[in-house]
């Protein structure tokens, strides 16, 4: 299966080494930047970090890269997958650990209903086939943070298979040139998280905290349909948004709730796939694309220098012992047609009911925003891309009479600009939706000019507790409503500057702007330029 060749999916990379994986020419070139924390094959060539892109050389053949992902998302549930201890991010070490989590003898797993529902909902959102019967297995390996010596997972028959995930990449320099790509979802399975090990270098020992051990994970396996770091990062971002919209996972990479392993290989188009290497435990969205591209470039360099790609993890993989989990019978799911009559609703899961209760998915939300408010697709993307921004936007829309386009522009440009400048989240904003709505109302009524509105916004941002109306009154920013006074000012300006008037009459169209500027100064900036222009033109033509 050859990777799709794209024209230009990675415009303007921040770290400019030769383009990789996205269909344009893949050249040899020194990899830059720091190495990722993944396992690597042997590299025989030492490279100097080098930050220029190399020009394509004639006659060089191209490379295609293939990227598959295994994404682990922590399920947002109160308790763990197989035990009743709490799921919480920060807590004293080993305080959220039950006897089962500590793998004490005589304890047994008891499946958490919420985790199964989370898995089914995620499967439905990704268009998967939900297996009515799925099985649990044990994956054996030795590690200090895995007290049982095995992880309960669903290798043989997972809960959901054969879905797809759609995401958009930009294919040109303009943000509006977006194209939808799909990556197949191989399967979704339920599995346990392991504990955390902290290495104490000073005393050369490893400390174990089992708070995380046993938390439910959704493993989402994406087929190698992606061809560069940017595609992979975009797919992960979309999955993140879906999980957050469903509420099945908070998917916060920084808190370790979403972890990604990438499988990467390169090959010449038309030839069979190359040896793949694994880059594990990527837990930063920004780093993801870079690490993948780095690995792609490393493999290309390696192969072009006549070396070969060695896969250390592959040899480890087939040694892992899998066996069925003997303490858990098969997991059976039902739909409205197959529900056993008189069954305890607590004990059965109805896929159809879950499907009915699925919240609106990001893709649908974006389309709805475009339809409902006439905004551009990239605006709807931007609204969904920031936590809480969509809710803020919708609150403002509800309270203001201003046009949706105005609201969109103010929220995405002014409001978001201020947030980003001070590195704040929407929840930390000093300006409330009501305040912005009030401001936009004033603007809509033409009570103030747009430049005055910006001034008011700045004042609001300082959060001194004043409303927009108060600020306008204090700073005397109201637009001149008195038409008489405006007419008088215009007339006096025209009289005071006869040469400009003559200039205008002679045919210089720019002279009018000078006049407008003069009138504005006279009104202390409180007159709307368009109104001024109107009055002046009327007076001049009479």
């Amino acid at each position, binding site marked *: 299966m050859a990777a799709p060749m794209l024209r230009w999916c990675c415009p303007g990379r921040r770290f400019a080494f030769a383009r990789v994986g996205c269909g344009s020419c893949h050249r040899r070139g020194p990899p830059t930047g720091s190495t990722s924390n993944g396992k690597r094959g042997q590299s025989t060539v030492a490279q100097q970090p080098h930050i220029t892109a190399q020009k394509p050389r004639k006659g060089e053949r191209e490379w295609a890269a293939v990227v598959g992902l295994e994404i682990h998302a922590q399920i947002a549930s109160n*308790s763990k997958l197989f035990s009743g201890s709490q799921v919480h991010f920060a807590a004293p*070490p080993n305080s959220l650990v039950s006897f089962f989590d500590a793998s004490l003898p005589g304890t047994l797993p008891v499946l958490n*209903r919420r985790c199964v529902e989370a898995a089914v909902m995620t499967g439905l959102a990704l268009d998967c086939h939900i297996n009515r019967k799925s099985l649990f297995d044990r994956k054996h390996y030795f590690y*200090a943070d895995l007290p049982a010596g095995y992880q309960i997972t669903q290798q043989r028959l997972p809960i959901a298979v054969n879905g797809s995930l759609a995401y958009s990449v930009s294919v040109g320099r303009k943000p509006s040139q977006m194209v939808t790509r799909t990556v197949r979802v191989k399967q979704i399975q339920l599995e346990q998280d392991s504990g955390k090990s*902290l290495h104490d270098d000073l005393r050369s020992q490893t400390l174990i905290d089992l708070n995380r051990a046993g938390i439910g994970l959704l493993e989402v396996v994406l087929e190698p349909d992606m061809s560069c770091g940017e595609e992979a990062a975009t797919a992960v971002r979309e999955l993140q948004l879906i999980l957050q919209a469903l509420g099945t996972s908070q998917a916060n990479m920084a808190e370790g709730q979403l972890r990604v392993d990438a499988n990467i290989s390169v090959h010449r188009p038309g030839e069979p796939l190359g040896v793949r290497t694994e880059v594990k435990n990527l837990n930063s969205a920004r780093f993801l694309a870079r690490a993948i591209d780095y690995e792609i470039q490393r493999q290309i360099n390696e192969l072009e220098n006549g070396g070969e790609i060695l896969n250390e993890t592959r040899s480890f993989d087939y040694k892992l*012992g899998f066996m069925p989990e*003997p303490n*858990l*019978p098969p997991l059976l799911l039902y739909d409205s047609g197959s529900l056993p009559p008189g069954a305890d609703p607590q004990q059965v899961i109805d896929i159809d009911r879950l499907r009915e209760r699925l919240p609106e998915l990001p893709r649908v939300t974006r389309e709805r925003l475009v339809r409902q408010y006439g905004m551009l697709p990239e605006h709807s993307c931007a609204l969904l891309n920031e936590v809480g921004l969509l809710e803020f936007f919708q609150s403002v829309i509800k309270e203001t009479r201003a046009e949706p386009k105005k609201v969109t522009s103010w929220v995405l440009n002014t409001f978001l600009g201020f947030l980003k400048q001070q590195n704040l989240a929407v929840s930390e904003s000093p300006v409330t939706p009501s305040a912005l709505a009030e401001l936009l109302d004033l603007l809509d009524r033409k009570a103030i000019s747009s430049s005055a509105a910006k001034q008011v916004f700045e004042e609001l941002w300082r959060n001194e507790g004043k409303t927009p109306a108060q600020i306008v009154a204090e700073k005397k920013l109201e637009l001149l409503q008195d038409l008489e006074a405006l007419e008088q000012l215009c007339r006096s300006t025209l009289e005071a500057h006869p040469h400009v008037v003559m200039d205008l009459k002679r045919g210089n169209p720019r002279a009018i702007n000078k006049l407008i500027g003069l009138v504005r100064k006279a009104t202390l900036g409180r007159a709307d330029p368009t109104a001024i222009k109107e009055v002046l033109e009327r007076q001049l033509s009479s």
Partner: protein
Amino acid sequence: MSVQASPTLFMASASAAVAALSDVITFKRVARLGEDALRRPTGSEMWARAVHLCLRAAARGRRGFTSKADPQGSGRVTGELIQHLERLSLVDFGSQEAVARLEKAIAFADRLRAVNTDGVEPMESVLEDRCLYLRSDNVVEGNCAEELLQNSHRVVEEYFVAPPGNISWSKLDEKQPFPHH
């Protein structure tokens, strides 16, 4: 006998069964099917693994198997296989006696192959007809750090200190492959 590291329910019962002086390992179902029918787990690898764990106990100098089976010429265990097993199970096969026991144990378990299981579905769990109980998502356990930490030999500020039990990969590589016939 005690089994170290990861005594799973299945393994523990399997080891006990193998070590017991019985030729036939019975499950609940067997009585219904008749004496000759034995349900066999998928893959003989699983049984080989059960044997590994038994062997660990044996290798630590406990009493060996009183196996009635003759080594059925299933072949010697090669040095390569020993290394592979050591990596898998992190058990140190430190003596020729251990290897011999391993070979005997494998031969013993191999007798399962004599059973004809054509057309018989492998049973993975004795619970296969049961309903999988679903627990509601409430917090009912935890908050027993003190109790749990008492189980650990070494503790640092409420963290378990990982025992140096795992043989690190580097150490394994340094070891000479065990010379045997």
